[in-house]
């Protein structure tokens, strides 16, 4: 991948007219050492206030600033995905547009990236938000995400992250996956680290989140778990789900048989009902797995892979064999 810039800063903005100029000044102060080798990519997520005119003023003064303007509001994940797509940097940093992240942390993140990681996540260790409605749910969610996906970092929700450009560009992001970027990037084999970053209380504007998203996030975690674990082999996942149903069904069937022989009229009705329904469920899940396999195999992306692995060419023939993450065979083998 040819990169024109060393560094791209991606900032999604939605109605942040009060913050955007200050934010730009701070980013510039933090990144001035890169000179012309960095760019700031503001993604306007359909703002209805003065955000875009201010951005255009900034761009006139500083051609390193680029603007991607959405037709309407599509949400933070879409804005991030668009930013990553249009970023030209070898490394990419993403951050919030509400000044709660501190651009001064960018060099720290990049230094960590240079230690040989693909994704470096910010960790707002001293978060400046309300405990009960923001921080507690976040602690619980991060713990569950860590358990479920195996990516044990403290703060999935922090937008301040640094990426190796080629890696994050290969990660498919949609729906509301911005909370799960680290987990999704493990699909590509990313090496993940985290560093402690500053966090400021909100100065201007209003927070756009509340507590009403608990159930959505819970379902999203299930979704991420399935995609990261099984998207390329759905038959296995559904097969695994179907095993307990089928086994329990068989047990119930045996019980039903024995009750029938023992002459227990009512017990036989109960256990055979349960047995039939469990066996049906097992068959249903198994066939869904087969349909899933069909979907994966006939997807539009057929010439590509569903997951793009990150590949390193090894220079040293005596290197640790574990360094060899993926070999490129030109087939889907590497991902299966």
């Amino acid at each position, binding site marked *: 991948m040819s990169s024109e810039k060393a560094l791209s800063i991606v900032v999604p903005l939605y109605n942040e007219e009060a913050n955007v100029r200050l934010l730009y000044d701070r980013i510039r102060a933090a990144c001035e050492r890169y000179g012309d080798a960095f760019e700031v990519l503001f993604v306007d997520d359909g703002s209805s206030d003065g955000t875009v005119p201010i951005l255009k003023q900034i761009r006139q003064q500083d051609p390193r600033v680029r603007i991607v303007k959405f037709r309407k509001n*599509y949400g933070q994940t879409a804005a991030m*995905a668009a930013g990553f797509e249009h970023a030209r940097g070898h490394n990419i940093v993403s951050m919030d547009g509400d000044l709660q992240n501190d651009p001064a942390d960018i060099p720290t993140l990049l230094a960590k990236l240079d230690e040989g990681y693909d994704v470096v996540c910010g960790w707002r260790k001293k978060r400046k938000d309300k405990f009960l409605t923001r921080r507690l749910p976040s602690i619980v969610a991060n713990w569950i995400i860590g358990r479920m996906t195996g990516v044990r970092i403290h703060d999935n929700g922090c937008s301040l992250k640094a990426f190796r450009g080629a890696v994050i560009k290969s990660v498919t992001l949609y729906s509301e996956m911005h909370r799960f970027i680290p987990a999704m990037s493990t699909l590509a084999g990313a090496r993940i680290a985290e560093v402690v970053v500053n966090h400021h209380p909100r100065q201007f504007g209003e927070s756009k989140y509340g507590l009403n998203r608990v159930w959505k996030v819970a379902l*999203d975690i299930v979704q991420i778990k399935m995609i990261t674990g099984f998207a390329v082999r759905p038959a296995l996942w559904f097969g695994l789900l179907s095993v307990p149903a089928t086994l329990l069904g068989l047990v119930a069937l045996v019980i039903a048989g024995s009750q029938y022989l023992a002459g227990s009229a009512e017990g036989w009705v109960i256990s055979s009902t349960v047995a039939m329904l469990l066996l049906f469920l097992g068959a249903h899940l198994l066939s*869904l797995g087969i349909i899933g396999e069909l979907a994966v195999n006939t997807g539009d992306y057929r010439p590509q892979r569903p997951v793009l692995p990150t590949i390193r060419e090894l220079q040293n023939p005596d290197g640790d064999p574990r360094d060899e993450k993926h070999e490129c065979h030109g087939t889907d083998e590497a991902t299966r």
Partner: protein
Amino acid sequence: MATQEMKSMSAMEQMKPHAEEPVQPVEEPASAVELSVVIPIAERYDDLGQIHAQHSAELRHLGLSHEFIFVVDGSMKSALGQLEPLKREHPEIQLLAMNRTFGEATALSVGLERARGRRILTLPAYFQVEPAELRHMMEQAADSDLAIAWRYPRVDSVLNRIQTWFFHRITRLLTGTKYHDIACGMRVMDRKVAREVHLYGDLHRFFPLLAYQRGFRVTEVQVRQSRHDAGRRIYSLGIYLRRMLDILTLFFLFKFTKKPLRFFGLVGSALLASGGAISLYLGLYRLFGAGAIGNRPLLILGVLLIVLGLQLFSIGLLGEIIIFTHARNAKDYEVQEIE
């Protein structure tokens, strides 16, 4: 256009579109006309000669260069009987007929593909709006991507109004939009709207919503309803059922396209929980010897709810897999400009 077979027959051009695969639009031709007028002709139509005469008179009055495109959905003898003399009189009219009935949405999209104008005006094949309102409509449409006619005040029967009110009530509730008359066929759009909004099935009715979802600016223009539109309309039960299913489809497209598990997971876990509660109750009932449960339909209900809940949940998971495998090609967002 490899999938299309075109034969010229007398004054007609016969087309055979594939309803399943959207035909790729032809490369952008140098636009000579300012406005293309597309009129799909399906079940209901008035005197088509009158439709053409009155609207083209209005457009001439506005000084707009325009072209008329009629698309007949299937071989409708009487509609063709009206259009063939019209074509003889005005050879510049484009007259397309599909070989069988594909539905109004397909007729409309075929017409939109043929349109060469910078902007496109779609009209219903019958008088919904007073043709004189066209001028007002074109003025108001100037600074939006899509302008839709809003027949207000209504002059048609109370029954029609109740139906319309009910239809819009549900649509607004399920999609979170605020339009008053989405089904009116008079719409003025920029050609990029016609290129990007894909129509199939019965979705032509929801064209404004689909355009809105793609991020286009949609405005409503209040116009006088035609008195020819006043007749009472009662449809068969099947039509109402189909309309409800259409709204449901749209609801999914709006809210859950990229997150099927959000919907199926929610419904599935609610059913699972109620099934679990019923089964638990029955289990305790029997364990503590309060009586037999083998003859109670509640047992079957409880177990069935559990199974249905798990099935819905797993269908949601399957949906997620399908979305994931296609997400790389189907973008979530539309970029207006990049600087």
